[in-house]
């Protein structure tokens, strides 16, 4: 077991955001978290990687309580790709990736050859070694995301938490990001906005609705018409796609939905 979360709860003042969230991620699994905007997906993740302090509940990473771990140790075990990655200072790509080494560096530590090797490997794995000296701010959204994944690689963790990593990206980049993360073969817990992408890449999916776990299971059991209507409030048709063997969702516009309802 890589990650075990029990009865996690978080509230803003008197307003409860998430409650009674229990989930687990086995070693090597790619787990998706889906849910409408405001359902609490991000909050769940932030409470796990301690950007927020949970009101109740516990998280165990490799059997160890995350609460008792130092920031530095957590950073050596969990790599996080958050939603906001705006920066108004000009670092080049290599410097950005090098920041992934900071959990391993004490105050007066020098950059070693080993660090440089790890950084180079991360750059080449993401196919961005020729951009090493380019200013990060000048990159396109997809390129930036590749740099950030290279930073995760340099961080050398075997567990990744991704918070909607492909938001605002072109579809080709979305696939590229998921493909490259899948190829790493590490354990992943990811909040995913696009349900079809979640179906393609996830081993199991947690549906979060109104701050609670609504349902969990394999994509084919989770992505159903009922769930989409109850949780997301949309009508859809779902079929197992012949090539991917995964559920494929077709959303139905109002005009068709109305016709269908009349027939029934």
């Amino acid at each position, binding site marked *: 077991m890589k990650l075990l979360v029990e009865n996690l709860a978080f509230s803003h003042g008197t307003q409860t955001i998430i409650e009674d969230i229990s989930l687990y991620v086995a070693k090597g699994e790619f787990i998706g978290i889906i849910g409408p905007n405001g359902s609490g997906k991000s909050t769940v993740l*932030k409470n796990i*990687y*301690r*950007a927020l302090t949970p009101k109740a509940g516990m998280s165990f990473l490799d059997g160890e309580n995350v609460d008792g771990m130092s*920031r*530095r*140790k*957590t*950073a*050596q075990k*969990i*790599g*996080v790709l*958050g939603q*906001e*990655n*705006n*920066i*108004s*200072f*000009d*670092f*080049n790509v290599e*410097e950005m990736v090098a*920041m*992934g080494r*900071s*959990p391993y*560096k004490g*105050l*007066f530590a020098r950059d070693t050859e080993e660090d*440089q090797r790890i950084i*180079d490997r991360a750059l080449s794995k993401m196919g961005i*070694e020729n951009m*090493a*000296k380019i200013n990060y701010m000048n990159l396109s959204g997809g390129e930036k995301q590749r740099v950030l994944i290279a930073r995760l690689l340099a*961080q050398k963790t075997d567990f990744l938490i991704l918070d909607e990593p492909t938001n605002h990206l072109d579809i080709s980049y979305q696939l590229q990001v998921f493909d490259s993360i899948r190829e790493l073969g590490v354990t992943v817990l990811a909040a995913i906005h696009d349900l079809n992408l979640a179906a393609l890449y996830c081993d199991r999916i947690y549906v979060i609705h109104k701050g609670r776990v609504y349902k969990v299971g394999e994509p084919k059991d989770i992505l159903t018409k009922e769930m989409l209507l109850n949780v997301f409030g949309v009508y859809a048709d779902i079929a197992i796609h012949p090539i991917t063997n995964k559920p494929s969702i077709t959303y139905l516009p109002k005009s068709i939905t109305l016709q269908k309802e009349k027939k029934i």
Partner: protein
Amino acid sequence: MKGKEYMQEKTRQLAAQKEITNQGEKWTFSAMIILLFIVSLGSIILSIGIGPVAVAPLAVAKIMLHKLPVVQAYIQMDWTPLEENIVWVLRLPRVALGMIVGASLAAAGVAMQALVRNTLADPFILGVSAGASATATLGMLFGVFSFLGSYSLSISAFIGAAISTALVYYMAKVKGKINIAQLLLTGVAVSMIMDAVTKIITLSAPNALGLHNAAFWMSGSLAGAKWAYLKFPLIVIIICMIILLAYYRVLNVLLLGEEAAGTLGISVERVQKLLIIICSLLVGVTISVSGSIGFVGLMVPHVTRLLVGSNHKRVLPVSALLGGILVVWTDVAARMAIAPEELPIGILTALVGGPFFIWLLRKNAKS
């Protein structure tokens, strides 16, 4: 050649090329630091020579070398005692103080910008200087910190700087993020309040404050520098630079935002507190010897980043040296512009720094 071998060969070539560029980069950076050291030294010597009584640069260099223990024996004394007096007693302390003050203000600017993650931050703009001036005058008037002896002025200034920095920083935070408009406006308000306090104190107790009148606190001056004034600011800038350089990775990561920094193993709150202390120390100590000299902490880090990027490993030493050079030459201009009268140096830096700030604001708004 087979595909696999070809790939290996190619990888090796690329690695070798990279090695060369990496070394090249290191070399250029070292060269830049050495160059800046030479320019600093040159600035010191040249600026000492300039004044109502001009002293030739060669004579200045000889007088300075003559004070060194070993080299002393090889220097021929061909200067007048008057020249030695002007160089050693009057002008060198002032120029050296300029270097220290410039370096401190630039370093304080870098620290503040890392704290608020914005290049528009500057101790003067955010009211930190004003806070330091206010408590320094208060301290002088009531002698609250007089038991600390000669450091009392620095320490009272530090307290005001720390209060202002913390106030502005925590007021500008909206939902865990720094709002830049909020930050600048809070800075303006704190600045006005503190300036008012300073004015009231200096106007109501003219005798007790003697030399240090309102103009000194608000527009800064290096006049009246003595050797005795140099020691404490020098120690402070050296200690602060060592700490900041030790934290260069942390400062870099901090620019990514609090949350991202946390996921990279940084205890963000602790670092922020440390930065508030360091910044207040640098500003407080500087203010107590030179009054408030604005915009150095804004302009110098900006120019530095254009030269070497944002990596603090480079930004810190380059900023410190450039800051020193800038203040030394601005002080020369302040001495010479309306000679024999002297302009307060803070007025000159504001004259240049104000438009620079407006230009930065416009640039920021566009991107």
